[in-house]
């Protein structure tokens, strides 16, 4: 028999299963993968360097664009880090709003992950159903911040504006009848909180639907069970966080271990997997969606009962009320000072992590006392996860690379920054 060399195969960066601009160099022996070398950096935009040149508040919008699937969680880490350096505490209502939107973001992220992971492996219908639910959550984003994705909603000291009292409604015209519009608007009659409450009531049955499609499905199981197994010890060594770590059976969740905001007042469970394979990570993420749903329900109940300020009234950090700014000279001076120069953050350094849907998303800021960070470093969970891909797919078939890529839940916005 003739000796055959390993075949080197290039996967991506323009491959629909590569989730963006990932390039993998694969060494194949027949259909078995021997070695994988991920090439990253194709979506590098220099966010960290960019943040050094701008006053603190300007970079909030850029944080959205890091992990563009879980926007508000990235903002949250950045804003929390600044708050810790400044040693300010946002009002309790703002904390609840943030937690609620963090969990909405978690569901958004997991829905997209589930849809795309399913699509990669061959479950087409699921993709459509997931995006149906995402639509409602996107509407929540838009109602509260004005943008469906890049919210720029959190601010150091709270959130920009309170939750709106009314939801935007569909309008009838000659192409759509009044009765149909009425049906479409049924959950938009009340406030945003009513809209979210209605969603949380519907959502568990939708998750049941996804599970009916996948959990027992033999094709799904053949593609995911015992693929990409990571032992718990190894998962910790590799720096895994989030569902990747919990899928391996390590109960580690920053919302519990180092509670920020009001997570210590809320009741939720941390799901963990047993085997550390793709299937377990799928189960963990689905259960996380259910738990997030519960958290949102608790937040909605609290927010309905407790009106109050959503941002601290310290005009050195947050702009004065608009009505006040128009008539009061001092407020106008604060307004101009804040929007032209920003605020100075005391000297020091801080690392502030949050449990983003993908894992531990952290922001490290070094401040030299100026109005812009001296250095900003983003700890992206996807980076550590991608680094383990060689280990996870070694010895598997080519088709399993797609399963593993899907289960890693990579987003290149944050990975390449």
């Amino acid at each position, binding site marked *: 028999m003739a000796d055959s060399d390993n075949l080197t195969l290039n996967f991506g960066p323009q491959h629909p299963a590569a989730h963006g601009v990932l390039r993998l160099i694969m060494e194949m022996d027949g259909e078995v993968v021997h070695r994988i070398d991920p090439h990253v950096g194709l979506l590098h935009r220099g966010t960290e360097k960019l943040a050094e040149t701008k006053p603190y508040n300007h970079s909030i919008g850029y944080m959205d664009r890091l992990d563009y699937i879980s926007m508000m969680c990235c903002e949250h880490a950045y804003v929390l880090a600044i708050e810790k350096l400044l040693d300010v505490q946002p009002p309790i209502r703002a904390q609840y709003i943030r937690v609620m939107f963090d969990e909405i973001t978690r569901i958004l992220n997991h829905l997209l992950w589930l849809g795309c992971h399913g699509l990669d492996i061959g479950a087409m*219908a699921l993709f459509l159903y997931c995006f149906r639910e995402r639509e409602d959550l996107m509407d929540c984003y838009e109602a509260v911040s004005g*943008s469906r994705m890049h919210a720029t909603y959190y601010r150091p000291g709270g959130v920009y504006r309170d939750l709106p009292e009314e939801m935007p409604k*569909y309008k009838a*015209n000659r192409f759509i009848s009044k009765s149909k519009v009425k049906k479409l608007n049924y959950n938009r009659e009340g406030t945003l909180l009513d809209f979210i409450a209605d969603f949380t009531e519907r959502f568990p049955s939708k998750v049941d639907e996804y599970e009916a499609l996948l959990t027992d499905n033999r094709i799904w199981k053949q593609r995911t069970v015992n693929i990409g197994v990571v032992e718990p010890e190894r998962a910790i060594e590799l720096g895994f966080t989030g569902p990747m770590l919990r899928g391996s059976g390590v109960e580690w969740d920053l919302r519990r271990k180092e509670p920020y905001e009001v997570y210590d007042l809320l009741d939720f469970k941390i799901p963990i997997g047993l085997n550390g394979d793709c299937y377990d990570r799928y189960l963990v993420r689905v259960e996380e969606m259910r738990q997030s749903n519960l958290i949102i329900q608790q937040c909605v109940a609290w927010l309905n009962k407790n009106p109050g300020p959503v941002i601290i009234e310290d005009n050195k950090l947050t702009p004065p009320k608009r009505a006040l700014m128009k008539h009061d000279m001092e407020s106008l001076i604060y307004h101009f000072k804040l929007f032209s120069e920003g605020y100075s953050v005391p000297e020091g350094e801080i690392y502030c992590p949050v449990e983003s849907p993908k894992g531990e998303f952290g922001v490290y800021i070094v401040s030299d006392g100026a109005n812009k960070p001296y250095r900003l470093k983003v700890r992206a969970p996807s980076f550590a996860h991608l680094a383990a891909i060689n280990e996870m797919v070694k010895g598997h078939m080519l088709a399993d690379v797609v399963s593993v890529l899907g289960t890693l839940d990579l987003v290149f916005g944050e990975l390449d920054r």
Partner: protein
Amino acid sequence: MKILNIIKTLTLIDLLKGLKVTLKNFFKPKITVQYPEVKTPISNRFRGKLALMKYENGEERCIACKLCSAVCPANAISIDSEESEDGTRRTTRFDIDAFKCVYCGFCEEACPVDAIVETDIFEYHMTENHQRLQTKEMLLQLGDDYREKIVRKKEKDHHYK
């Protein structure tokens, strides 16, 4: 247990369960709307194309304080100013680069006279590269054309700010 598994495998019960879901959804009303004719609702806070507003008497609101260009994270706004004939400070140039703008809404937040506003226009196009620059005239025209809509939108959201 083993027999049960064999029955499960042979009857394709797991696949049929999934097919039941897809069949049920096949007959359900769809959430898709026929886009150009029917549009999804747009929030009062929506951040779309930028426009410049005037007072009721037709006077420009903008006083060329340049807060918007100072606060813009993407440096999309460029302003030149001069003293006008009546002694007020006015812009001679007010360009917004549509390719640079990230629609963060900071400029509207910063404007002390409510001159620059976010409209809910999100459908626009250009065919030549240079058209990405929206000049002062274009922005004022946009503000005039959609004045009623913009005012209604801003009034509804005013008390949150």
